[in-house]
């Protein structure tokens, strides 16, 4: 049995920030991540971040992970380690590599397990050549492998638009971006870069079918009316060998689900999300949640939530209350500022459904 004051599950932006904050308050942290390297999805984010300096504005995502784990000496890192079970007595089970199982007893745990991509139903969606947007990013930006020659991007939120631009940077054609909603969801600065490069962003359009025998050879798109119905005769077949799906994310809350954590379905936050208090503590008391697992937002908010949960858990573990309180207050103000304005409207609407953030 491995014993620790604080276990952080997930070494992406939220988990790294949580581990860093708790360690800076003198808490011993065990950080487990299923990947071979820490960083989560940051390791493929080649674009520069927004916000202010405290949100690492102007820094590319790929350069952020080392900045989050400043107090490495208090953090024990387990990579290639998947937490597979969570039990009522506070014991978690983990699998390292192929066949090494271990038990972990943690006084507190922060689940920063991120999100998984949503899927879309259409004929041919199972063909090789249909990828999640994250997979296209991984293939290009981590392994330097070209996903294909010509891409249809489905979804004009930030992920769809940013990955489209990254495809262009890798020398790959983007035939079009289709978006079922009447407006582009992505930040204007990203969408403008794509528009300047001559890539059409077709709102009120959807994919009807991916065609091909062994892999994608073309895709049929069509225009939607105001009731989201296909307008007959508007179908168009595009010669593409890649269909990239960027149609949203769902929080990964399997471990919390195993424990019977109270959750609520909030579409604005990506689906079923755990109820939590202002310090991100769930209904289970010793378990905290942070980042996309707490509700799909973006990496800047995930880092702040991680710091907040790390400080809140540290305070309960006996860290200096004033120091922890200062971090918590700073993080809550920082989250308010990130969620301000029209860009944060959806997140604010989602969070308000969680009864004002109280249990």
């Amino acid at each position, binding site marked *: 049995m491995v014993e620790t004051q604080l276990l952080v599950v997930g070494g992406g932006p939220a988990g790294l920030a949580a581990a860093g904050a708790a360690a800076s308050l003198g808490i011993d942290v065990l950080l487990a991540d299923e990947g071979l390297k820490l960083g989560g999805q940051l390791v493929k984010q*080649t674009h520069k971040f927004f916000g202010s300096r405290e949100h690492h504005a102007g820094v590319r995502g790929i350069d952020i992970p080392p900045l989050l784990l400043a107090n490495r000496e208090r953090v024990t890192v387990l990579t290639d380690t998947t937490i597979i079970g969570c039990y009522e007595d506070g014991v978690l089970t983990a699998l390292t590599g192929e066949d090494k199982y271990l038990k972990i007893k943690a006084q507190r745990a922060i689940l920063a397990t991120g999100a998984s991509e949503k899927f879309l139903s259409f004929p041919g969606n199972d063909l*090789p050549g249909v990828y999640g947007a994250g997979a296209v990013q991984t293939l290009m930006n*981590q392994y330097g492998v070209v996903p294909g020659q010509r891409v249809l991007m489905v979804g004009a939120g930030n992920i769809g638009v940013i990955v489209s631009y990254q495809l262009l*940077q890798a020398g790959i054609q983007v035939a079009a971006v289709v978006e079922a909603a009447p407006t582009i969801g992505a930040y204007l600065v990203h969408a403008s870069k794509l528009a300047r490069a001559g890539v059409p962003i077709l709102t009120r359009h959807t994919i009807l079918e991916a065609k091909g025998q062994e892999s994608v050879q073309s895709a049929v798109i069509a225009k939607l009316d105001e009731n989201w119905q296909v307008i007959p005769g508007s179908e168009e077949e595009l010669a593409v060998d890649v269909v990239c799906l960027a149609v949203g994310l769902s929080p990964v809350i399997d471990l919390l689900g195993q424990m019977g954590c109270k959750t609520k379905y909030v579409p604005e936050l990506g689906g079923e999300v755990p109820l939590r208090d202002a310090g991100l503590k769930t209904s289970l008391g010793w378990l905290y949640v942070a980042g996309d697992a707490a509700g799909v937002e973006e990496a800047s908010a995930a880092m702040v939530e991680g710091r907040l949960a790390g400080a809140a858990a540290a305070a309960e573990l006996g860290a200096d209350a004033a120091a922890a309180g200062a971090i918590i207050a700073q993080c809550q103000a920082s989250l308010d500022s990130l969620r301000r304005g029209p860009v944060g409207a959806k997140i604010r609407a989602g969070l308000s459904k969680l009864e004002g953030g109280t249990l």
Partner: protein
Amino acid sequence: MSRISEHPILEFEDKPVVSFTFEGKKLEGRQGDTVASALHANGILVLSHSRQHNRPRGFFCAIGKCSSCLMTVDGRANVRTCTEPLKEGMVVRRQPAIGGELKW
């Protein structure tokens, strides 16, 4: 299929070659590849087949979640090839949808 040679932000220097076999055929990947990224770079898109309708399945999630890339590697069935680091001399084969050795 190929590899990215020029990129405005990332550098993909020529990494050492890692040799492996796929269905008995000798192929080359690069150091740092996963089994699936090396196969993709060699133009191999079909990694498995669906159990019921035998439809082709390829690289989909790249993070070991979707089961679309399960293959038999060095005799081990159901390896998630999208997260399995490529090693020199690996023997990679497609497998029946339920895993195990090919019997036909």
